[in-house]
């Protein structure tokens, strides 16, 4: 098989060596991946060419600072990348990239998407305020075993943890410290992989089998876990009372939308003049409701945003990381997303070919959303009175 190779190397060093190798060989011009920041207490995104490859770079960081799709969007929104760039993304970031490509915010020309089996990530605030060395150790030691434990809601409830859909996948699950598999699934990826010297390990068949087995088991476990978590969460937010209780801590800072990769509008409806109104209008609202929370339209923002983007929500959890109030907003959107996506049988970030549900239609569908007209209404005949 040409599209699967065995790369030798120890842990993250081995993965880094792979990137250095393809840079040095000129297979790519630059690579976009996270590296430690200056103080070393967090991570940041870096675009590096072969002379600028950072020692501290880390393709699989234990924390997601900025959603990678947002970075790639900045880079390619106005046109295709000038240099051949490999981008290393978590699976959720990859899904967001695919959604944004469909939404015409990212140009994938000249971009090679690389993803990996993701163990999860720490919540951003925990990581920054905690002891990074021990966090890093704990994280790195669980790269191959999927035994990583985190408190990050989006990662706990994640069931799409492989880099499926990327041009190149680093198959870490079930690998060992002396090497890992790397597979290509697209023409771009295969072309690149051809020129990589990977040992054709004799045991590759067994490795694939080992990974598949592990994956199958894990997938089932995680699917179930996601269902239980979301169902349990649904019980805590169901109905107006509970819902408003969850959002009582919200300060209307809209940071969830800023961190969200899918919310790409530069002028958001919920921040626009459309929601301004005259003072007396707001006073009327206040007297109708015996009080009006200011700034108003808090629930409208959240539920409205669900309408605009939950269909493409990739459950990356960037919203929750950015929330100063730690509202479980990522679970909320995952829950709503699960249902809306199921209705349209749509898997966000799964494939570039699958159209976004709101841009296609069929003549006969969703009859259940229509209220069926059966008979003339009795009052409609003698309607001279009210």
């Amino acid at each position, binding site marked *: 098989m040409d599209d699967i190779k065995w790369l030798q190397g120890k842990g993250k060093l081995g993965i880094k060596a792979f990137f250095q190798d393809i840079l040095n060989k000129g297979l790519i011009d630059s690579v976009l991946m996270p590296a430690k920041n200056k103080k070393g207490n967090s991570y940041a995104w870096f675009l590096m060419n072969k002379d600028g490859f950072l020692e501290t770079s880390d393709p699989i960081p234990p924390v997601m600072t900025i959603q990678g799709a947002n970075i790639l969007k900045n880079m390619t929104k106005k046109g295709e990348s000038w240099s051949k760039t490999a981008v290393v993304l978590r699976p959720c970031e990859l899904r967001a990239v695919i959604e944004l490509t469909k939404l015409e915010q990212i140009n994938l020309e000249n971009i090679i998407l690389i993803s990996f089996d993701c163990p999860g990530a720490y919540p951003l605030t925990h990581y920054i305020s905690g002891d990074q060395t021990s966090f890093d150790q704990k994280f790195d030691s669980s790269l191959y075993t999927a035994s990583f434990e985190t408190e990050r809601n989006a990662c706990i409830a994640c069931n799409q943890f492989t880099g499926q859909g990327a041009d190149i996948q680093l198959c870490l699950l079930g690998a060992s410290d002396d090497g890992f598999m790397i597979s290509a699934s697209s023409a771009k990826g295969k072309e690149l992989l051809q020129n990589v010297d990977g040992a054709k390990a004799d045991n590759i068949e067994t490795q694939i089998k080992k990974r598949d087995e592990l994956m199958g088991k894990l997938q089932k476990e995680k699917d179930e876990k996601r269902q239980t978590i979301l169902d349990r969460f649904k019980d805590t937010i169901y109905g107006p009372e509970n819902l408003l209780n969850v959002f009582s801590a919200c300060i209307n800072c809209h940071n969830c939308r800023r961190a969200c990769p899918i919310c790409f509008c530069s002028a958001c409806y919920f921040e626009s003049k459309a929601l301004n109104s005259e003072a007396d209008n707001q006073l009327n609202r206040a007297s109708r409701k015996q009080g009006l*929370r200011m700034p108003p339209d808090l629930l*409208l923002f959240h539920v409205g945003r669900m309408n605009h983007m939950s269909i493409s929500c990739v459950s990356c959890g960037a919203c929750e990381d950015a929330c100063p109030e730690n509202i479980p907003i990522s679970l909320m959107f995952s829950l709503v997303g699960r249902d809306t996506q199921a209705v349209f049988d749509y898997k966000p970030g799964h494939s570039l070919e699958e159209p976004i549900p709101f841009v296609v239609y*069929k003549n006969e569908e969703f009859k259940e*959303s229509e*209220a*069926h007209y059966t008979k003339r209404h009795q009052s409609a005949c003698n309607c001279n009175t009210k």
Partner: protein
Amino acid sequence: MSDENEFIPNIVYGLCAWCGTGGSETAAAHHLKYPENIKPFRVMCTGALDPVYILRALFEGADGFIVSGCHPGDCHYDTGNYRARRRITALKTILGTLGLDSERVWLRWVGHGEGQRLVDTAFEFNDHIKKLGPNPLKSRRDS
């Protein structure tokens, strides 16, 4: 006649400019009446009716919201009503998931000539909302 404490719902009726509004014109020409607590408004096409408008109405005082536009295949802009159907499907799903009463939103196609159907729809929805009772969200000061 009516009881003082009777609940008179506040209903918004979104009509597309071509069929929905046409239907209400036909109803008027036939001297048909619909309940006066139903407030119609016109959009150019049901496809232009972002579900956020519906949410805004529901959070700020409406007890129910109906949308009427051209029958499938009749849209003046070809596909606007299909889009509306998908959007409202998503909206109803979201409301259902959050426990916010998706039954307060109705979608029913009404053709230009179907004045009677429009009036029937209005009455039917009015009764339906009366049964459901007042929308709890409209009086929440923290929404």
